[in-house]
């Protein structure tokens, strides 16, 4: 039986000649633009011809098909789905900020630049780094900047043969992908059963071709790299540099600083730790911080404050060894403004609370979930701001997978934790509650998970065929890949 979709495509509302006329510029005479005939478009593009109400109703109804932080507890590990304060959006969309052209004179942008400068300074302070650049547009973009700076530094020292980047087995996929984009080879080192990097493996992996190591701390396994000082020593002694993937900064915000852990370059995910919106897939911002030796290589532009307290943009003349410009303008400025407002609202005390309460919530949730019968992947370790459950036992005993549990959680009104990562732990759920969730919410999540465990024992098909109550059931992704249907084709086409 073929069922209709919940919501048609916007194109299916089109009627020829219909349109949101209030949004069109008035034209006094038929505009015959001076486009040379051979360059003129001959067929109109397939764009909806609908009323404004059609558009508002359609996309509002679509929004109602989504889970979001504003509607659901969203414990996606490594994503830091904390509350996005509305004030941040209100400030970023003030007309003077929203309407400012990126190439407008610095004289007419001092207010904006003051915010950017202070954001740079605050990020330096919380990370313990010597300098910060705000232009990378996402975490992966920041990673690229970091590795590119490391390579530039080594090239400047005549060590361009260093082309190996060490990544732990459990590293996020962007790490080795970034290494490739920088012309490097990713070398994996093993992680021990206790979750820490295997130091013997690391000693064997470093050498004259080591450009550096990319590490997340706490690691992607949700635990603190206890021997980080030794790791730093081993890598530095081999002539390599240390890169910090800041995806898990929320765990240690205000408590530990990457700069104190001897990292040479870091990126911060402002859309995680500093609560800018995830937006269904961005925009993010991947500000980078560096130690003194990498400062000359920072990407441009950067805001500087002059002696007379005015602000200006640094250029290639100020940083002749910069790795260059990574984006057309100054970065995701609107996102940076949101992060700035968030940091100003938190202040120094608020930021310490982030690390403390994110860690409290994670440890509480881990304790309660193991009490109701789940297995922690690293039960002997403290949870950081996140932790991993492994469902290996349930998979063997009941035939239910981590994915099945994730899908059933959706029915019970919770967004699932991360399931596809890290690949090192089989049947894993990576759970990150964040500090903005209350004890009652966590308890409700535990109750739902306990129910799921019962169902796994008593009626596993309920999990295997979940979700049951959402706008769609489980989707055939094999079909989606074998017979790609990536754009709507109208019958007229």
């Amino acid at each position, binding site marked *: 039986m073929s069922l209709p979709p919940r919501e048609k495509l916007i194109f299916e509302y089109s009627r020829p000649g219909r349109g949101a006329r209030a949004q069109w510029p008035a034209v006094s005479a038929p505009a015959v633009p001076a486009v040379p005939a051979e360059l003129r478009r001959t067929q109109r593009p397939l764009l909806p011809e609908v009323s404004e109400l059609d558009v508002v109703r359609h996309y509002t109804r679509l929004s109602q098909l989504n889970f979001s932080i504003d509607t659901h507890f969203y414990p996606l590990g490594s994503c830091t789905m904390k509350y996005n304060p509305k004030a941040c959006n209100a400030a970023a969309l003030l007309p003077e900020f929203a309407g400012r052209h990126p190439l407008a004179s610095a004289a007419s942008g001092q207010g904006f630049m003051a915010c950017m400068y202070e954001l740079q300074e605050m990020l330096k302070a919380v990370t313990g780094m010597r300098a910060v650049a705000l232009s990378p547009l996402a975490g992966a973009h920041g990673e690229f900047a970091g590795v590119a700076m490391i390579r530039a530094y080594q090239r400047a020292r005549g060590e361009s043969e260093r082309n190996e980047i060490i990544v732990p087995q459990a590293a996020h996929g962007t790490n080795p992908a970034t290494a490739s984009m920088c012309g490097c080879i990713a070398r994996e080192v093993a992680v021990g059963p206790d979750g820490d990097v295997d130091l013997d493996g690391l000693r064997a992996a470093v050498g004259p071709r080591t450009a550096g190591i990319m590490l997340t701390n706490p690691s992607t396994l949700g635990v603190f790299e206890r021997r980080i000082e030794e790791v730093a020593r081993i890598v530095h002694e081999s002539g390599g540099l240390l890169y910090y993937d800041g995806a898990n900064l929320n765990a240690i915000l205000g408590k530990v600083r990457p700069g104190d852990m001897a990292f040479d370059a870091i990126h911060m995910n402002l859309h995680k730790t500093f609560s800018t919106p995830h937006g269904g897939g961005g925009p993010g911002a991947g500000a980078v911080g560096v130690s003194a030796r990498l400062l000359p290589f920072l990407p441009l532009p950067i805001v500087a404050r002059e002696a007379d307290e005015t602000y200006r943009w640094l250029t290639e003349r100020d940083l002749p060894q910069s790795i260059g410009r990574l984006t057309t303008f100054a970065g995701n400025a609107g996102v940076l403004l949101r992060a700035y407002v968030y940091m100003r609202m938190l202040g120094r005390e608020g930021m310490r609370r982030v690390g403390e309460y994110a860690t409290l919530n994670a440890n509480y949730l881990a304790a309660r979930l193991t009490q109701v019968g789940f297995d922690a992947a690293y039960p002997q370790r403290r949870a950081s701001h996140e932790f991993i459950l492994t469902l290996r036992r349930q998979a063997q005993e009941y035939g239910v997978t981590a994915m099945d549990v994730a899908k059933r959680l959706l029915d019970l009104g919770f967004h699932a934790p991360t399931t596809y990562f890290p690949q090192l732990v089989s049947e894993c759920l990576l759970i990150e509650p964040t500090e903005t969730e209350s004890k009652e919410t966590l308890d409700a999540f535990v109750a739902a998970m306990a129910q799921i465990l019962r169902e796994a024992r008593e009626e596993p098909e309920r999990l295997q065929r979940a979700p049951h109550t959402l706008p769609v059931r489980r989707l055939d992704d094999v079909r989606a*890949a074998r017979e790609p249907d990536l754009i709507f084709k109208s019958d007229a086409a």
Partner: protein
Amino acid sequence: MSNIPADLKFARSHEWIRQLGDGTAEVGISDHAQHALGDLVFVELPDIGRALSAGEACAVVESVKAASDVFAPVAGTVVAVNDQLRHTPELINRDPYGGGWLLRLRAQPSSADTGLLSAGEYGTLTAEG
């Protein structure tokens, strides 16, 4: 328990090779490999005439959850590829040792298949794995 044809040799990276008796050899991936990958959605095959060294990545098999390189078990020149896989990659899932073959090589006379496992050895390896 998969039936591993006795006339095949295997690489540790889960490719098999079958000598066709006319100086060419057929290459594919094992039942163990196709099972681990899941439903295959796409196969990228090398150009005919391409010269490969032993262990060189020569094809990609893609499922929903993974895209894995296929490595040439021996050195040789590609003389044929299985065009059917372009439209029906699931042939590899259904018949990994027969209709799901990927390519045929003309092996170098000097290229030995030492280092490759017999069917029995591969069966043991994957039973343990």
